Every structure is written in C-alpha cells, then in structure tokens.
C-alpha cells in the first residue's frame, strides 16, 4: 500500500502509523455522559467497504491524515490533513 500524503507525496505505508477509525476525531463533550464515551471508545462501524481512518506520517512530515480507504481492496480513495478538517469546523 502507498499513501499519497498531501505534504510529502506518495509514500510507502511503512512510513505511517495506523491509529484507527476517523470517528476518534469526534470526541464527545466532557459532560456528554458515560454512554456517549462508551460509544466513542468501544463501538465500531467496521464496514466491509469504505472506512474513514486516521494515519500518522510518523517517518515523514509527522502530520495526522484522515484517509478514506476501501478495506476490501486496500485502495486509498482520499487523503486529507486531519488538521484541515478540524480547522474547517472552527
């Protein structure tokens, strides 16, 4: 697998660290309650198609990337800087 990092270009996936579902960026508010946190931490969509996920370019620019990947074919469909998503929300 190769990942097209917006800052570094197309690089071998070995340079990246996989963190997991992109949903981890949607942290509930501190007072959202135990159920919301249980859901956030433990429950997973786990689709057999396009998965939104966080990869860290550990051996490159060290940016967090928000990636859409087809987990049945391992094809990368889109790569964005996670930061740009957070900025867009502010």
């Amino acid at each position, binding site marked *: 697998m190769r990942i097209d990092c917006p800052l570094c270009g197309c690089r071998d996936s070995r340079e990246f660290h996989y963190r997991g579902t992109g949903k981890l960026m949607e942290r509930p508010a501190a007072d959202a309650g135990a159920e919301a946190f*249980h859901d956030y931490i433990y429950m997973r*969509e786990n689709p057999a198609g396009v998965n939104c996920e966080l990869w860290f370019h550990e051996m490159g620019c060290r940016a967090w990337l928000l990636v859409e990947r087809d987990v049945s074919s391992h094809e990368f469909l889109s790569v964005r800087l996670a930061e740009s998503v957070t900025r867009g929300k502010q």
Partner: protein
Amino acid sequence: MRYSAWEVFRNGLTGNKGWKPVWRNPEPKSSYDVVIVGGGGHGLSTAYYLAKNHGIANIAVLEKGYLGGGNVGRNTTIVRANYMLEGNSQFYSHSLKLWENLERELNYNVMLSQRGQILLAHSDGQMDRFARLGNMMRMQGDDAELWGRDEVRAKLPYLNHDTARFPIYGGLMHWRGGTARHDAVAWGYARGADRRGVDLIQNCQVTGFRIEGGQIRGVDTTRGYIAAGKVGMCVAGRSSQVGEMAGLRLPIESHVLQAFVTEGLKPLIPHVVSFGMGHFYISQSDKGGLVFGGDLDGYNSYAQRGNLPMAEHVAEAGMALMPMIGKARMLRSWGGIMDMSMDGSPIIDKTSIDGFFINCGWCYGGFKAVPASGDVFAHLIATGNHHAAANRFLLDRFATGRMIDETGNGATPNLH
C-alpha cells in the same frame, strides 16, 4: 460408520470401496428449533454440543461457503492454555481438557499433538512475569515449567543464543500445548453433528433476520426464509456485518492476520516456539513444513490477504531467532479476517433480541477455543444461562468496566 483400525484393514482388503460421504447434504427445512449461522469451528462445535449435551435434534448450521472454508482452515493450529486473566484462564483450561479427549469423543483423528509450547523471555521483567503466569497456570491445575537460559539452550539449541538482538533469558514451557489438524477439527465436529441429526447446509448465506416484538423469528437466506426458535451467530470475521443485520453494533473491528509455510523439511523444530518480543511464532507441521506467523498487518481489512511489509517483518523476526530457517524456501502465505474485540477477548452472550445469541471477537485465539466455545455456547443457547467456564465474556463488559485485557493495550484492537 464408526472409524476403527478394523475398518481401515477391511477397506484395505476390499479396494477402499466401503468409505461413505461423511455427512449428508440436505435441503433446508422450513423451520428449525435452533439455527447456527456460520459453519466454521465454532458453529460446528456448537451444533454438535447442542445435539449431544442438550438433546436438541432439530438444528441447522447455515454456511455461506463450504464447511471449514473460513478461518478454521486458515489458522496455524496452535492449542494452548496459558492465559492469565480471570475469565480467559478457566475458559482455555476447559478447552484444553476437551481437546485432550476430542478424538475419542468424535471418533475422528484431529491429530492433536501435545508437543509443548514455549514462550521465550528476553528480560528479567519478562522472566518475572512468566514465573507469575506459570504459577497461576499450575494453581488452576494446568502445567507450566519455568526454564532458565541454560535449559532453553540445551533443549532448543538451534535458536540464536549468542548474537541475538533480544538475548534469550529463559522461557515458560507448557507441555500440554501443541498443534492439531485444523481441517480435521471442522470435519470431525461436522460429522459428529450430522450423525446426531443436525442439518449442515452449505452455500446458504444469511442475508437478514426477522425479528418481531424483540423476539427472533427466523433468518432470510440465499436459499429462502427459514424459521427459527433460536439463532446463534458464529461468523468470525464477519460478525459486525451479520450483527448489523440484526440491528446490533459491536465492539469489534476486522483485521487481517497472515501465516506462512515453507517446503517440507526433516524433523527440525519439535515444539511450538513463541518469540513475542519479535512478533513471531513457529512450529513444524506433520508434513514437515515450517508453519509460522506474526502479528496482524495492523489496519482494518476484509481482504483475506495481507501486504508485503508484514511478510518481511515476520521473516526478519524468524531470521533473528533461528538463522537456519533462512535456507528454507517459503511455499505459501495467506491471510484470514479476524474479528478483533476491544480488549482482545471473545464475546459469548445473549443480546437485546430474545433468542438471538452471539459468539464473536475471537481475535488470535479462536482455534484453540473451538471445543470449549461450542460447549459453552450450546449451554447458553439451550439453558439461557452462562456456563461457569465462560461467564465473563459479556457484551456489556466495556460499559461496566469489566474488560479482559490480556495484553493491556486498551481499545486498540490492532495491538492485541
């Protein structure tokens, strides 16, 4: 037919014409008391024990492909009972005891080979941990021997004892651990279930569940609707998707694990060797191939094939531990999809739907679990109560804080 030395002899004299198909290939009936979804190790053993221990005869196992074509036929066949945490330890201990009597139980040769499994230690801290683990195993009646550096060197002289990146300090030997023939386990349970009247229905994918008033009524399949009093789900890597059809969301991710085998060699590695520090384990099959593997590829996957970085990593770890294997030629590699739970331990429980039971989250450990999983899941389905050996594998343990996290990695399924 009951298999025996006499049958082998008799068939040898009569041109081997007496062997019959091992199970029937029935058409699905319109209704069953219990429907098991998934014809892997867990589904087949569950059906077997439902029929045998609980006297339920009207059972079907629905398998979307062919029996034993899933992970039960893709794993590296290691059987052991050296788990540490309450909840896991008694379950795997129960499973190993069932393994030890399985061939007699099933009248089928599952080729259980208790050749011993050794966990290698590479630091004082790891030796302390293994001393504790070994004591806990012995306290519950299983076996463990703590070996020092010299003992490991004497018994496993082929390891790299002198120039290793992670020098070997010792190890924990578990003599009753070993390997079994994976296909034979599936076939043995399938045959046993069929002989007790269970319908094993292949090429029958479950595509939906009918639920009325919070009660399961039946399953939609590619071979039509089948009514069911109770339904048990044993679909391994597909648990999230099949669960979703029943409206369940599960604390599970699907990941790919690879395995590798070399050409057949003369007897070389008598035990199962686990090199946790390097993410590598190895044994030698009865045919002579070196069977080995490592950790998950590390990212979510349903692809049933892994990537080269992990193949390279596993090969490097193998070379670091036993440089001699560098001369062996690797014949094949393959991958299987594992249902990784959030604490690395399985889920065997009822659900919010009456009559709908789940058995999933097997991670790396699902092959050694096959006998006990079937036993306890059948018990749960038949009686509605958890079996004493499996009363902590609860679906709500993540909400109640009762996780069984053997590696202490938390909710990072790719690291368990």
